[in-house]
């Protein structure tokens, strides 16, 4: 009667029988896509140094993961895409002339120490790329400080009053210039509004990922629209930074645009594994990152405090999750 119907069926599995199309790899690829404009613009402006740095970080991160799995005799995990994202993000936190051996070390630390040692994807407490970046910046402060600013960087050409002197003092980013000016009670008379445009469109001091705030905002917006990241983290983060810098008497726009803040707020703090699980928790987490970022910027030893602000908040995530564990339907306070 039913010759077209098979009598035994090859796949029998439990409900639900359908699943959303969103896979782990798909999510990671969206993150990569969102970072492509920034990455491309960095390579376009900085040339092969940037390309080599990117290739080295990604290769080091992915190679480390492959080797770890190989040695531990575990199934390979490169297919989930997370090592690729870690390598890419690590590269974007480094200045273009970072010695490649340092990039290799950063990639190894990011994957081996910060991720695989914790049990692999999903088990790490701290963002791997940021651990890699922190490792580099702590271990080789001197080396990094000696990395010459990228030639053609705009701030030489911009002729902002006072920056000539500052150049000699710091040889570094606009953030450092602003910090020095603050420390001197504005003695250098730096007008931060002059920095808006370069920071927004084309900035060659600082790391690869700081090349253009506009492109980072575009990528971040893309991830929010695509439902990959929760807007609460970057909005809480950036909002807190803006409000607090204003309260501290600094320029909020400059503080949002400068340094690795936008990269951190949209792409690092939003890392699933190392951020909270509830909407309120995420908002709180974002605000906490912003708070420590500003405090670090204004009172810390280094103006580049994004890395440590996020890592510190990463450490609080288990507490936030436990504290804000959702109330189960039908338990306790009802709406009745």
């Amino acid at each position: 009667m039913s010759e077209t119907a098979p009598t035994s069926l090859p796949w029998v599995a439990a409900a639900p029988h359908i699943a959303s199309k969103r896979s782990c790899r798909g999510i990671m690829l969206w993150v990569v896509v969102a970072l492509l404009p920034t990455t491309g613009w960095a390579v376009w402006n900085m040339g092969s140094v940037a390309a080599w740095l990117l290739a080295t970080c990604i290769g080091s991160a992915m190679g480390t993961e492959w080797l770890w799995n190989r040695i531990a005799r575990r199934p390979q995990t490169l297919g989930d895409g997370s090592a690729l994202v870690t390598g890419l993000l690590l590269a974007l936190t480094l200045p273009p002339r970072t010695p490649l051996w340092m990039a290799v070390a950063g990639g190894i630390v990011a994957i081996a120490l910060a991720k695989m040692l914790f049990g692999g994807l999903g088990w790490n407490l701290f963002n791997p790329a940021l651990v890699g970046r922190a490792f580099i910046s702590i271990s080789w402060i001197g080396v990094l400080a000696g990395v010459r600013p990228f030639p053609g960087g705009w701030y030489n050409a911009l002729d902002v009053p006072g920056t000539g002197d500052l150049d000699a003092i710091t040889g570094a980013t606009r953030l450092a210039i602003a910090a020095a000016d603050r420390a001197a009670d504005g003695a250098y008379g730096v007008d931060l509004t002059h920095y808006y445009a370069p920071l927004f469109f084309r900035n060659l001091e600082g790391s690869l990922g700081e090349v253009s705030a506009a492109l980072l905002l575009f990528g971040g917006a893309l991830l929010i629209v695509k439902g990959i990241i929760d807007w609460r983290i970057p909005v809480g983060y950036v909002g807190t930074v803006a409000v607090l810098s204003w309260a501290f008497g600094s320029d909020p726009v400059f503080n949002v645009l400068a340094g690795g803040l936008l990269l951190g707020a949209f792409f690092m703090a939003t890392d699933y594994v190392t951020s909270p699980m509830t909407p309120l928790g995420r908002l709180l987490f974002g605000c906490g990152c912003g708070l420590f970022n500003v405090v670090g910027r204004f009172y810390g030893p280094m103006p580049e405090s994004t890395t440590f602000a996020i890592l510190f908040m990463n450490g609080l995530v288990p507490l936030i999750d436990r504290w804000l564990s959702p109330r189960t339907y039908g338990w306790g306070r009802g709406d009745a």
Partner: protein
Amino acid sequence: MSPRRFRGGIHPPDHKEKTRGGSSARIGVPERIVLPMVQHLGTPCVPAVEAGDVVERGQVVGRAEAMVSAPIHSPVAGTVIAVTETLTATGARVPAVEIAPEAEQDWDRFVPLEDAEVVHTVRAAGIVGLGGAAFPSAVKLTPPQDMPVSTVILNGCECEPYLTCDHRTMLERPGRVVAGGRIIAEAVGASRTVIGIEANKFDAVDTMRSAAGGSAEVCVLPAHYPQGAEKQLIRSVLGIEVPHGKLPAATGALVHNVSTAAAIADAVEDRRPLMERVMTVTGHVARPGNYLVPIGTLVSDVLAAAGGTVGEVARVIVGGPMTGMPLAGLDVPVVKATGGIVVFAQGEVAPAVLGDQPCIRCARCVAACPMWLEPYVIGIHANRRDWDATERYHAIDCIECGCCSYVCPTSRPLVQLIRRAKHMLMERGSKL
């Protein structure tokens, strides 16, 4: 009071367009009817016939001998071939009565139910929750004394993707649905009747509104899975939660499926027992649609009536794709609570996941859980067999809706893990 959306849930593609348009057609007389003695939650029925007996349509072939049970009637005139056993869709082997129907059936004739008051009639008609729960309806019509029912909610949400049988029932038999609602409300002394319908069934909303007149309110709810789950429906319609460990009746609400309501009206007004039902046959079949199917028809025969399957079949399920049962073979009978048969091709079904996938803490399961649980945590603890921890995270409150598994980007088998935890906890004596 305007309906509120419950927090959580998902929006899977509904795939209802193939079947919601056409009216339900009765399938031809199948070659055999297999009636499992367990088609409901509760005590199994006892066969009331022997091999060789001639049975009439509507005759009792399985007697209910307990309070929580529901008798089983022959949907056809025919001869009992055997009192035997059958596999059911759940994979269980249960006692069954097998009947060879006569080739010609007079569908308008049946053995009417004896005159009795409403609750007895509903019990004698063998009516169970047709939305899939299969709980004997008569039991729900006698709520505990200390829990007066003030609102009857008729569940016309049909939030499971693919299924449209409740939708068709509302369009084709709106009067019966309304009558069933009135009968239920009178039986339990409720003053208010609400028909909850998802907004994607606008035609059913209009039809039910005009059928109900002033006797029931039609409440349009957002199309959102699992809108039709009892606890979520009560929350959406009344804005209150069913307290943990309590019956839904504790909120003063009583929920019945719209098709169940229509069956109750059939029983009370026509003295008609539950013998057949409308079910959705869809997916990769030649003629997807809704069919009026005698209970006990084999799945293979139902599929044949829909023109047979088309192309390479990956999985056949009874029920909806979120909670339905996968079939190991097609020679199992459809039962009272079978709302649909869905045929999937490869690539449409969730991938079979081998090995333990990592949780990337994306929080999608937390956002999707309509019980506001943290499925990822329960899953991790269940993996470690730390049942105490699963209890702390209220695993027992899980309604097994499948939202968490649906959204998980690493395809963790969350529902299975949580179900396992629930079993362990119930064995230890934790109460639902």
